[in-house]
């Protein structure tokens, strides 16, 4: 495991005040927010700065982290071989205050969880505090086919335990997740009792998985609707045609292209989108594909078409 330098993640030094941490975080969060950032690694950077902010904005965690960083500097851990020393956080206590928001640590690094995951739980236990465990949040990316048809997927979760020597160690557990048919992007799946353990004998929290749909070779997803570009020949577009179209649930259906169809025309297959009981639609965006005028016969056909439609001026509206 890498020792993470949270100060450099936020571009500040050890002497930074609380206000400096806040300012640095906000500036970087604007730069790397995945909705606005042009940086290629925006999502990863955003996770890193969120994690650094979670530690450095909290006085208790920051003090413990600073003390650990000093020990690491003296001890000289080789790169990538960091293990927190036993009792590294003695004398520090971590609270999950009312303003700390969701326990979104599922996104954070192994380094973070190994330091603060268990410690937060111990802190709660020491204060004789009784409450249901916090809910955890994570995302799951599934294929469009799995979203439509439902699937069973295994996910691996890390949880942290303390071994006989008092050293934190990781336990990975595999969960089998049943993904119901008809999930749409942004929908949540709740796994009961798979969040943080409860405090003082109370039940564990839940794990919420946000569904994301992986990019697809043929289809594009917009909320509950699915889009596909459907290439047609000029003849099919002009005269109308019955064409075969693959559908994401598998197989193909016959679709009627109306006569005089233009490029960009949207054909709707109602109810063939995502969303289970209230499904979206499948839209076909017409794109006219021209047969190349290389063979003599095709050339001749185009020439005949030109003669037959000599009075048609597609640029009339341009005034030329």
């Amino acid at each position: 495991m890498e020792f993470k330098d949270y100060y450099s993640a936020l571009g500040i030094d050890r002497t930074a005040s609380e206000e400096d941490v806040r300012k640095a975080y906000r500036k970087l969060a604007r730069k790397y927010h995945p909705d606005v950032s042009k940086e290629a690694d925006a999502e990863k950077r955003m996770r890193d700065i969120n994690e650094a902010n979670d530690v450095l904005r909290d006085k208790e965690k920051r003090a413990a982290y600073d003390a650990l960083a000093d020990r690491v500097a003296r001890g000289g851990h080789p790169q990538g071989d960091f293990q927190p020393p036993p009792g590294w956080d003695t004398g520090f206590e971590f609270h999950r205050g009312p303003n700390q928001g969701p326990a979104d640590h599922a996104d954070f690094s192994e380094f973070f969880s190994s330091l603060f995951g268990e410690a937060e739980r111990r802190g709660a236990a020491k204060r004789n505090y009784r409450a249901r465990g916090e809910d955890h949040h994570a995302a799951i990316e599934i294929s469009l086919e799995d979203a439509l048809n439902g699937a069973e997927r295994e996910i691996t979760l890390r949880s942290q335990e303390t071994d006989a020597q008092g050293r934190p160690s990781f336990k990975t557990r595999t969960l089998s997740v049943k993904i119901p048919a008809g999930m749409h992007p942004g929908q949540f799946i709740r796994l009961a009792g798979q969040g943080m353990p409860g405090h003082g004998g109370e039940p564990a929290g839940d794990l919420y998985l946000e569904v994301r749909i992986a990019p697809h070779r043929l289809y594009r997803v917009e909320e509950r609707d699915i889009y596909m570009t459907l290439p047609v020949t000029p003849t099919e577009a002009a005269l109308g045609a019955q064409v075969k179209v693959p559908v994401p649930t598998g197989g193909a259906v016959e679709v009627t292209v109306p006569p005089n169809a233009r490029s960009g025309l949207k054909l709707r297959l109602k109810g063939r989108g995502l969303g289970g009981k209230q499904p979206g639609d499948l839209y076909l965006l017409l794109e006219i594909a021209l047969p190349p005028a290389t063979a003599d016969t095709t050339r001749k056909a185009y020439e005949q078409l030109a003669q037959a439609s000599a009075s048609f001026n597609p640029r009339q509206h341009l005034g030329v």
Partner: protein
Amino acid sequence: MATVSVTTAISASQPLAASELAHACGADTEWVVQLVEVGIVQVTAAEAPPERWQFSSADLQSALEARRLERDFGVGLDAAALILDLQHEVRRLKAVIRAHGLR
């Protein structure tokens, strides 16, 4: 060996209660009442008691975002509502662009 867990898709037939939405965000029901007041989450009958309210996946997503904006940027819920509206619009437009194969 994988443990099989009870999975529920948050949907119209299995919505979240106000207390569940609050717990998922590390907050209390009073905070959810404020979200309803500023319109960050939608309920069909705001005048009904909070125990009867039902929330969707979209509400959970908005509530989580609002919680982060509050915590990390110190914004009030009114400003968070505006930021979320703008964010939804950006995401919607980006999805339209993608759906039409323009990017």
